[in-house]
């Protein structure tokens, strides 16, 4: 019996196990990072539209609109703006449906987010799983205004905070026995639309 060969096989076995484990971890990490990157790209597509829309609340050429909001809720924001700086004022509505899952969505947590301009609706199906809108009547305030915002309090709004979460379409589980692990990406921004500023 050659104990040297036996021991070398044992060591080799440990080494292989270690390499396989590390390889599996790296592979999982790679998938996680790649999925995060993809969801961030999806998030960027939506946030760029939000960043284009929200600062323009209440804008019109050479004037601030008297009526800036139609509805201000935690899942729906409807406002008026001359969005493209042309001659007409549009009504823009961002609405999140927390109870409705898009058809053919692979992630059961995904919900519908829509953007409507003067009745022309666009669904943003990028795996949005949470979308919350908060309103503040003081700059830097920590306590948001209670929603839905009453029509008489629309003029008090000076800041709008939007928090959005996206999840991957597929699960990413470390073990076969695990389930329900989706990769998250969260985006949050507080806007101070200039045309809401009290002059």
């Amino acid at each position, binding site marked *: 019996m050659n104990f040297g060969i036996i021991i070398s096989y044992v060591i080799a076995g440990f080494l292989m196990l270690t390499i396989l484990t590390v390889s599996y971890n790296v592979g999982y990490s790679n998938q996680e990072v790649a999925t995060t990157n993809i969801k961030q790209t999806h998030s960027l597509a939506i946030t760029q539209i939000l960043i284009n829309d929200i600062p323009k609340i209440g804008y019109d050429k*050479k004037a601030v609109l008297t009526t800036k909001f139609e509805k201000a809720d935690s899942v729906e924001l409807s406002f008026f703006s001359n969005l493209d700086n042309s001659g007409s004022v549009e009504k823009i509505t961002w609405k999140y449906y927390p109870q409705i899952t898009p058809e053919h969505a692979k992630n059961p947590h995904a919900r519908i987010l829509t953007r409507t301009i003067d009745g022309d609706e666009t669904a943003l199906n990028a795996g949005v799983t949470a979308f919350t809108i908060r309103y503040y009547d003081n700059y830097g305030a920590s306590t948001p205004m209670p929603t839905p915002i009453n029509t008489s309090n629309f003029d008090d709004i000076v800041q709008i905070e939007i928090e959005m979460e996206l999840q991957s379409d597929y699960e990413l589980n470390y073990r076969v026995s695990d389930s329900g692990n989706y990769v998250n990406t969260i985006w949050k921004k507080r806007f101070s639309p200039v045309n809401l500023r009290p002059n």
Partner: protein
Amino acid sequence: MLILSTGAIIILGIMQVGIHSQRSAIVQKSATSAYEVQARNKAYTAAQLAMERINESAGTWYPKKDSPWIEAIDGDSISLYYKLFQSSDPEPYPFSYLDEDTVEIYAKSWYRTSAKNKKEDFDLITTYIKSAMHFVPEFKSAMSFATDDFTISASGSSSISGNNPNAPGECEDRPAIATMSENAANMVSTNIDGDRLISDSTGVAYDPDLSYQPVDQLIARLRNSPGTRIINEEADGINYKGDLGTEDNPGVFFIEDDTKLTGGISEGYGILVVRSYGALAYDSSGVEMDIAGNFTFNGLVIFEDAYALDGKGTPTINGSVLVGKKDETTNNIMDVEISGNLHIQYDCLAEKYAQVAAAKELMQNRYKRLSTYE
């Protein structure tokens, strides 16, 4: 075994490099967001700088779309031009100086995205109403006493009127005299015959909001302004023969010594400040100044720490007279004597001459933001 281990390690290394590049991409996306905010702030800063330059240049600095102003802010350049829209209801000259014009500022700043190394720009369009600041207090009566340290008497054919002298509705009727306190108002009512005080509003009123501040600050600024005319014995002698402003060019004048108007001056426009130890005498007995035999000043006349207006002729002040003290803690009492044929007439149109005169010297604009597009 060694060969297998080596191969596995090499593959792990390649995977690690892949992960690193993806992590970099995630970080770059966050950095781009920070650059966007920075570009936005630069555009706003550029708009603020533009307003200051418009003020300093009295409107002569005017970059246009085909030749914008390019400036470096915090290492990166911005591009800016503006459009000026005249008031839709302009006043006739010189009151057009007070018109509210609309300024539309177009500012552009740039940033480079980390992910694609691509240049992106941020555009800002912000619209303001621009109006000249004058700090002239609103005329609340024909003659206002922004101090209680005075005595008053009247003689001759002098009179003070707070009624609208122009077309109906042009000006509101105001009190003939306004004081800071009820005691002072009572003193005036006792010492002045009510027939001399002409007003459909009230002859004498007291206004607890009446104050010499910030008029004293306005006077201090105007005194040092290059266009202000300082009339004193050293420069002009006792007999002043210059002008006191014209209808098209109202001015700011400080009387700081005893001065006689003997140069044929029949009219003045703007702001006339008579200061401590200064006294203005209108001598109508001489040959030189008898064109109409009277002198009319249109605007605001301020007597600071002194009152001495000796009119042998027929001087008229259209606008308002303000009497006040620079330092209320001093004990000097001003003896106000309204004598001869002096007539003080409240006039809201003459108020505009005072406003134009002050605005031209201060060269400062107020900007009220209308809307912003970003």
